[in-house]
Every structure is written in structure tokens, then in C-alpha cells.
């Protein structure tokens, strides 16, 4: 645990308390606002019609990679270290699993992103139909993944345990008990990674990324052919 004597300045409060809450507010309200006011714009913004071959080698690794990455982050950050230990997972074993799994998923994502970035700029049809938002999202994702991979690679020995610092800080934010002191001694590359993620979350509701929230779940149990009855005031 962190010592109580850690010095936290105004910058720490800005970055690790004010900013995360600002971002979360934008994230939640932005989604609601867009859904309510402009549902027509809510789409995965697929460009498969315009280009298909490169998309396969970009979109598939990227999406499967990022899903694994998110799963890993959930296990490492949301589930407390105590639970890992309760399962008999020693620090050493946890670290090996986290690093190998993380690097695999991270590089899979990066590979997909590189292909997607190349595709977005090299295929004229795709580039001509790209919005500023599409480019911003792509660049931010690349930076986030690069920072994340660098952080992992810089900590191969495992001397820094984010489960004692970043994880409780994040859970504190989500449970409305923010504690910036937890972030005080986190290596800069991890901080950069988190900062970039916050930027991404801030633009999220105003870009194509809204499609993440629309992943079809009802479909799983839905009857196949749908009939829709008109319902108006008299129904």
C-alpha cells in the first residue's frame, strides 16, 4: 500500500480526479445526447462495401485483439488483487500470464490497427469517405495501444505492480472514492497510456465508436423473422 506521506499536487488532482470525472460525464451524457437527438448517425460506419480484402486482415485481428485486451484489463484492473490471490495466483504466475497474454493481444490489436491505418490512407475510396472523426479515432487508438505495449514491455520484470496502484485508483474513480495519491508514483508511460485512454473516451460518443455499445445481444435469443405492428396513440 502507498505511504500516507506521498505528496500530491494540484496537477495530480487535475489529472487523476477532475479529468477522469469530466471524461466519464462526457462519455455517458454524450452517448445519451446522441442517441436521443440523432439516432440516424448511430452506426458501425462499415466501409466494407468500398474495400474488403485489406479489411479482413485489419478488422479481424484488431477487433479480436481489442476484445482480448479489454478482457485482460478487466481481470487486472477491475478484479481486486485479493481475488487473484484467493484463487491461489501468486504475483509471479499472475505476471507471466498477464504479460504473455497482454503482449499477444496487444500485438494482435496493433497489427490490425496498422493494416486499418494503411487501408484508410492508401485506399482512395476509403480515404475520400473518411470523416475527421474516423482519423482522430484511428490515431488515438494507435497511440493508446503503442503506449500500452510500451508500458508492458518496460515492465517485463514486474517491478511495478499496477494492481496495487492503478487498479485501486480506477476502482476508486468508479465507486466515487477517488484517491490521486495512488497514482503519484506510477511510471510516466503508464500515466501516458491512461491519459490517452481518457482522451479516447472523451471523443468516443461523437465518433463511430458508439457502435461498441450496440453489439447485438438481443439477437442471440430473438425469433428470426420480425413483424412490427404500428403503435401510435390509439394502440
Amino acid at each position, binding site marked *: 500500500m502507498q505511504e500516507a506521506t506521498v505528496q500530491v499536487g494540484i496537477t495530480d488532482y487535475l489529472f487523476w480526479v477532475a479529468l477522469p470525472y469530466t471524461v466519464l460525464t462526457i462519455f455517458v451524457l454524450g452517448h445519451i445526447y446522441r442517441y436521443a437527438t440523432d439516432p440516424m*448517425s448511430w452506426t458501425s460506419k462499415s466501409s466494407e462495401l468500398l474495400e474488403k480484402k485489406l479489411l479482413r486482415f485489419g478488422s479481424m485481428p484488431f477487433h479480436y485483439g481489442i476484445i482480448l485486451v479489454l478482457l485482460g484489463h478487466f481481470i487486472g484492473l477491475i478484479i481486486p488483487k485479493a481475488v487473484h490471490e484467493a484463487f491461489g495466483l501468486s504475483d509471479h504466475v499472475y505476471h507471466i500470464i498477464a504479460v504473455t497474454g497482454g503482449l499477444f493481444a496487444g500485438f494482435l490489436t496493433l497489427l490490425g490497427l496498422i493494416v486499418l491505418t494503411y487501408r484508410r490512407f492508401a485506399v482512395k475510396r476509403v480515404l475520400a469517405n473518411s470523416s475527421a472523426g474516423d482519423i482522430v479515432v484511428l490515431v488515438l487508438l494507435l497511440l493508446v495501444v503503442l503506449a500500452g505495449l510500451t508500458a508492458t514491455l518496460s515492465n517485463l520484470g514486474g517491478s511495478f505492480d499496477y494492481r496495487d496502484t492503478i487498479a485501486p485508483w480506477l476502482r476508486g474513480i468508479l465507486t466515487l472514492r477517488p484517491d490521486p495519491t495512488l497514482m503519484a508514483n506510477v511510471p510516466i508511460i503508464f500515466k501516458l497510456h491512461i491519459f490517452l485512454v481518457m482522451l479516447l473516451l472523451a471523443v468516443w460518443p461523437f465518433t463511430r465508436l458508439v457502435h461498441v455499445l450496440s453489439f447485438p445481444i438481443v439477437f442471440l435469443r430473438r425469433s428470426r423473422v420480425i413483424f412490427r405492428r404500428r403503435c401510435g396513440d390509439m394502440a
Partner: protein
Amino acid sequence: MKLKTNVGMVINLDKCIGCHTCSITCKNTWTNRDGTEYMWWNNVETKPGIGYPKRWEDQEHYKGGWENKNGKLELKQGGKLFEYINIFHNPHMPTIDDYYEPWDYDYEKLIKAKPSKYQPVARPKSKLTGEYMEKIEWGPNWEDDLAGSPEYMLKDPNITEDLEKEITLEFERSFFFYLPRLCNHCLNPACVAACPSGAMYKRDEDGIVLVDQDMCRGWRFCISACPYKKVYFNWDTHKAEKCIFCYPRFEAGLPTVCSETCVGRIRYVGIVFYDADKVKEAASAPEGDIYSAMLGLILDPTDKEVQKLAEKEGIRYDWIDAAVRSPIYKLVKEFEVALPLHPEYRTLPMVWYIPPLSPILRVMNSKGYSDIEIFPAIDEMRIPIKYLAKLFTAGNEEPIRKILKKLLAMRMYMRAVQLGKEEEFNDKILEEVGLNRKKAKELHRLLAVAKYEERFVIPTTNKEQFENTFKEQGFTGYDYKPPCDFCKGH
């Protein structure tokens, strides 16, 4: 039994002259926006030919429609698991090049060019990239009227090895006909079943298949699932779009634009009642039997029991009356002269086609027809029965023969009438095809005279049943809540 109503259309291929008026008026009405230039909700293809998109009938490639997998009806592209796995890249989705790259011409140059040595020209410009296109190599109806044959014609997926020797390019024996195509508003729509978002649906009151634009998330499985390739992807809004059966017109009792503007008056629009409980069974029938199973689905609207059932479903009198007078019911079920396009796709399409007659190849003796002997000659028509069967009956040639005979018998009888030889006419000709003099005249009136009121029997939508029309007064055509200005730019 569960009675439901579905819209239907009959297209009389015997009279289609391939003028493309239907396609043009449809396009002018619905698809001249950004992202839709390449879409032809209605298009007219030359058969035999590749079609639009290229080789759309090749389901081994596109995987459209349903399959009967050991008694279980499943989408040919794969079940729900397939969609979850491939949601990030749909392997069966066509690309824009399977249709064509939409373009426009640099018309401005014609009037704004400065005086120069050379005549200014309007060069083609891609709608996708805005760049000039050096050479246009494919476009809508590129192979119209067998243009470019044999290169294109022989790529028709319906021309399999057994047919190849019957298809000839020899001028005197060659053939082609037109096939207007639009969304079939199927009873068992594969597109609706494939939509992960639940954005696609059949309207409960008339079965029109629509895409809810606010709910569509662009997952693209409808596009690959539709075996007729009649759901399109708007590359500008990134959502699916399709023929809406001109529902704003239909609701007001008017025919679709394609039907209204058809110069040959070959289209019929109306409604049919069908038994929704039997849909699955019909869709699962053996390939060659699907057509007859479809006929079995359609209920007789003149039957008092059926009418009672309709009333129980809350269907108003004017709709029951429209079903009774429906030209679709008459042509499909009563006269049995209209066939579904590729029933083997198992979507139970509700646009029906009257197969075309064509000249008989055998040289007639100088006396001309010798009545009943004309029938064996059906097999010597320029358009091979086998080819028509591939299109309309999953290879079952009998229904095609029956219909062609019926059409021919009707013509022979009417010719006799016109020439004042009705008295001498041999009734056996009509009897053999299940007609009599009265019926033949009725069929002739429907097909040849084709009065507007008889071609289009469309009941107006009873909006008062589900909307407070008083409250709507004054808002017609405008959203109650206008969208705010902030959110238009996404």
C-alpha cells in the same frame, strides 16, 4: 391457422419490352441521393445474362437465402454464431465493384470552359472518390440486350452444362427476355432474419419489408443474406436501404411508382391473405415442390371461413374486398399463370412472374397451326423450358409447360374470337389447360386489356385504427419534434 396479409406483385414478362422506365422512375423517386447512386431498388435485367450485382444468382458465391439443413431451416450464410464470429468482416458481402462504381459527368466544363482549340468534353467523375475515371468498364445494364455476348451471357449462373448446348448464339435461334427485379417482400425474408440489430421487419398489416434507419447499425448481414441482392448498403449513411414498396403511395391506395409508370402495363399490385402458420413448412419443402407449397399458403379470399378469420384478425371490410378483387390472387392462384423467382432460395417471394412465350422454331406448314398439335411445339420455343424452369420453379418443368400452354390456348381462342371463328373453335384446347371460354376471356381481359383499376387493387391503410389522426392534423410530412441543429454534423 394464422391469417396474415401480404402485398404482392405480378409481372407479366410476356409483355416486358425492357424500356427501363420502371427503373428510372424508381431511381428518380427514391435513390438519387449521396450513397445511393449505385442502388437500383428496381432494375431490369436481360436474361440470359450476368445480372446486377454480377452473378447474383450464384449462391455458392454469395450464400444468400435459406437452406434446408437436415430438416432445419437455416440461413445459407450461416446461423447466429456465424454472424457473431464474422461481424467485423462479412465474408459474403458484395463490394461496390460487384455492382459498379457510381459516376457522374463533369457537365460544368461544357458550359464554363474557356475558348480553346479543342471541343470541351464532360469527363466521367467517380462519385466515390471525386476523381476522373479514365475508362468506364462496367455500369448499369452493361450487358443489356445481350450486349457483349457471348462473353457475358454465358456467365449466367442459370446456364449449367446441361443447358449449354441448348443456348446458342446463332442469330436465328438466339433468344433473350427481360426480367424486372425488385424486393420480393418475402413471406420468409432472409434479410430480416439475419439483421443482428432487429432493425429490419415486416409490417404487420401488409408484410412490406422495411429497414428502420434509426435502428440499423450497419452490420451488413441483410445484404449478404438476401439471395436477390435487393438490400443495399448506403456508403454515405452507412446503413442498409431497400425497396419500400412505395409505402407512402401504397398506404394512400396508389400502386408503386414502378407499376404506375410501366408503359407496357405489365405489372399488377394487390394483396393476398396467407396462412402464417404454414410458412416454415412451405419454406422447408423439397426444392421442386416449393412453388406448389407457396400456392398452398395463399388463402381463398372468397371463402366465407377465410373472410371470418380475417375479420377476427381485425382486418377491415375494404381490405377483405381488396383481397377478393386482388389481381395477384387471380393470376397466382386462380389462373395459376404466375411463378416465384428462384423459389429454391426458400424466402417465399411475393413478386410473381408470368413466363414469356417465344416463337416456335419449327417451320410451320403452310396451313399454319393445326390446333391441338400446337402443344407439343411448346418444347420448341426459342426460350428453352429448361432455362425458364431454372429461374422460376427450381428446375421443375411441368408448371412452366402448363402455363405456356395456358397462355397459348388463350391466344388461340381469342384469335378465333377476333376473326369471327368462335363458333368453330375446338373447346378441347381450352379444356386441356383448365380454361373455358368465359375464363379465357377473363384472363385475356386481365392480361391484354389490363385496365388500371383491375391491375391495381389497393386498399388504403386504415390509419385511424392506430393513430390519432386528429392530433396529427397539421403535421403531415413533418416530424413532431424537429431534430436539433447541433447534432446534424455527425
